[in-house]
């Protein structure tokens, strides 16, 4: 979509965002370090607790709950954020983006490329940001309809259940191989990395830990699989609510050619949506509930997002830039509706150049 701001206004907007970013950077210190170390400690406690409770069959639901919570924390508030380089300034190798590896079948190295670079740089740019629909779903009217998309809701459900696998396969860009713009050769190197990571994850969750519980092997195995499933469903929902509820916009490649820093910030705000909720909810979502702040400042420690959110919102409102936010229920319903609606061909032919037509249903 075309910005309603002049280039000068965009520059001023960008300057305000830069100033905000600098202020937070200058303020980083012991509180931030204590926070992330505290989260890691809590996550490890939950993990050990979960693994231990599998020895007590009646406590099975508790074990699964603890392990699920641990995996969610590890993937979202720790893994995702650490791998964004949010804590590189601490100089702690355990919290360094180049070294950290998360508890997930997708190798961190590959995820960093597709996520930190492709997705965060080309946020919601059709044809560039492969996180739009993950190459499987139709998430925008500008993606041309095809009978294949009749299965949109089913694909979404499958992607949700197997989300970590979807993320791992994501980098193979299968849709581009089908399209012929990518060769199997290009994927050779990636395959090895993915298989190595898959083997390690499977060995741990589906063989070693179950085996350690002896006769309880099947229970533990199912428990570990459930924890992975819970994490998948949760992560999928948070992430899809962050970009695709009504209100979040997509852009074309031409609009983003030679864009200014201000326009980039502008695009990040419009391409993202927040989810409102309490402090625990924010932590469990890895603060991706502050998707807008995260997209503006992907390398600032996530715990700062709630702090700066009121100011970001105020700045956006001053420039008349829509700041999309809403409770989880509403954003989820909005995303679900969109997935279903886009399974069908568009009802009215799109008027060319009309901005209103690309606006999704009002939420």
């Amino acid at each position, binding site marked *: 979509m075309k910005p309603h701001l002049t280039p000068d206004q965009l520059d001023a907007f960008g300057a305000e965002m830069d100033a905000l970013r600098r202020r937070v950077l200058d303020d980083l*210190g*012991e509180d931030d370090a204590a926070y992330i170390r505290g989260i890691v400690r809590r996550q490890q406690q939950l993990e050990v607790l979960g693994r231990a409770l599998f020895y007590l069959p009646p406590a099975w639901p508790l074990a699964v709950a603890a392990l699920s919570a641990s995996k969610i924390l590890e993937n979202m508030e720790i893994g995702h954020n650490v791998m964004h380089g949010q804590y590189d300034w601490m*100089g702690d190798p355990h919290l360094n983006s180049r070294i950290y590896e998360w508890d997930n079948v997708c190798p961190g190295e590959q995820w960093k490329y597709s996520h*930190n*670079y492709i997705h965060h*740089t080309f946020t919601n740019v059709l044809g560039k940001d492969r996180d739009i629909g993950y190459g499987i779903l139709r998430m925008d009217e500008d993606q041309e309809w095809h009978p294949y998309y009749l299965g949109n809701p089913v694909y979404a459900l499958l992607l949700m259940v197997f989300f970590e696998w979807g993320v791992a396969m994501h980098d193979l860009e299968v849709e581009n191989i089908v399209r012929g713009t990518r060769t199997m050769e290009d994927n050779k190197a990636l395959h090895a990395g993915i298989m190595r990571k898959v083997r390690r994850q499977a*060995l741990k969750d589906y063989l070693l830990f179950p085996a350690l519980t002896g006769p309880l092997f099947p229970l533990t195995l199912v428990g570990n699989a459930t924890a992975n499933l819970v994490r998948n469903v949760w992560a999928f929902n948070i992430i899809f609510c962050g970009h695709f509820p009504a209100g979040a916009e997509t852009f074309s490649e031409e609009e983003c050619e030679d864009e200014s820093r201000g326009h980039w910030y502008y695009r990040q705000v419009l391409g993202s949506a927040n989810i409102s909720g309490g402090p625990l909810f924010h932590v469990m979502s890895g603060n991706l509930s502050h998707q807008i702040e995260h997209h503006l400042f992907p390398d600032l420690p996530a715990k700062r997002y709630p702090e700066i959110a009121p100011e970001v919102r105020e700045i956006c409102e001053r420039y008349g830039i829509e700041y999309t936010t809403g409770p989880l229920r509403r954003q989820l319903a909005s995303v679900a509706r969109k997935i279903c609606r886009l399974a069908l061909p568009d009802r009215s032919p799109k008027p060319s150049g009309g901005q209103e037509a690309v606006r999704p249903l009002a939420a």
Partner: protein
Amino acid sequence: MVVLDRLVRSRTAAALTSPHGVDHYLSRINPMWAAHEVRARVVDVRRETDTPGAPVATLTLRPTATWRGHRAGQYVQVGLDLPGSARRMTRCFSISSPASGAGEEIALTVRAHADGQVSKHLVDAAPGLLLHLSQAEGSFTLPVSPATPGIDPLLFITGGSGITPAMSMLRTLLRDGYDGRAGRPVTFLHHARSPEDQIYAAELARIAEDDNDVTVHLRHGDARFSELELRRLAPGFRDTDTWACGPAGMMELVRAAYGDSPRLRLEHFKPPATATGSAEGDLRFARSDRRVANSGASIFEQAEDAGLSPVFGCRMGICFSCTTRKAEGTVRNVLSGAESSLPDEDIQICVSAPAGDCVVDL
């Protein structure tokens, strides 16, 4: 203990704690428990000199059982969590104690530099401080011991803090029974800023006095070693196995005196550089051995202009794909304007421009 040790280092433990590794969990229970990483507690701090502005202290460190020991002359990377900022700074220090075995205590002799945050903290450290170490590194080592046959003399030329690796070598020789009877004369030349600034003064005096065929020559202040003096104190020095370590000026002199003699081994230390301005100085790409005049643009652009193709992603400072090690020099972050002069620092080259001379690992 041994069983436990085996256990935490086993492949099973690694598989169970994948992808984070055993140490990720162990270190949170007790920082001195480790399966692979090395940490150490400072157990003793002794002042060597009280030179105003640049005092020197020797720290005795008790490492975790994972320390594999060191050869005399090697250095170790020391990571210190700077109190108040939560930033871990990592610097290299030569080990001054004699060669160590696995898990054995070591000593570092550290001079507090005016703008060296780590060194200042270490000199004023209290016992109990926790440090993060690497294994011993470096090839500036002593390949001979008293048991090595041969009568080739040994020569050490050091200045200032450069004495530490040579001291480790000398101490190792003496500890292992070197007494000069086998006829391998050792000459030890050292220059310090002043007699008050002389590190290990008492120990060196004792070594010089003992009947051990070690000759010690100390010079202070303006009395610097010249090539002429070198010829007098160590005749035939060009054909003598020599270890030299000291400030840049001294190293230049030594290098010139030795010509292309293969007997000379040098160890440099890197003091933090000072910024000289925006588009001055040279930008050197160490790995590809290329040098360009700094244009003031980002290091990334300058590397591309020089025909290199560094890895990149966003080119706007958000994805960290382009992170590269800066060996020395000052860089300015073009987004925040912050300047940084730390040696061996990881920087995002797409948003870093050199301020003065700069060396990056590209």
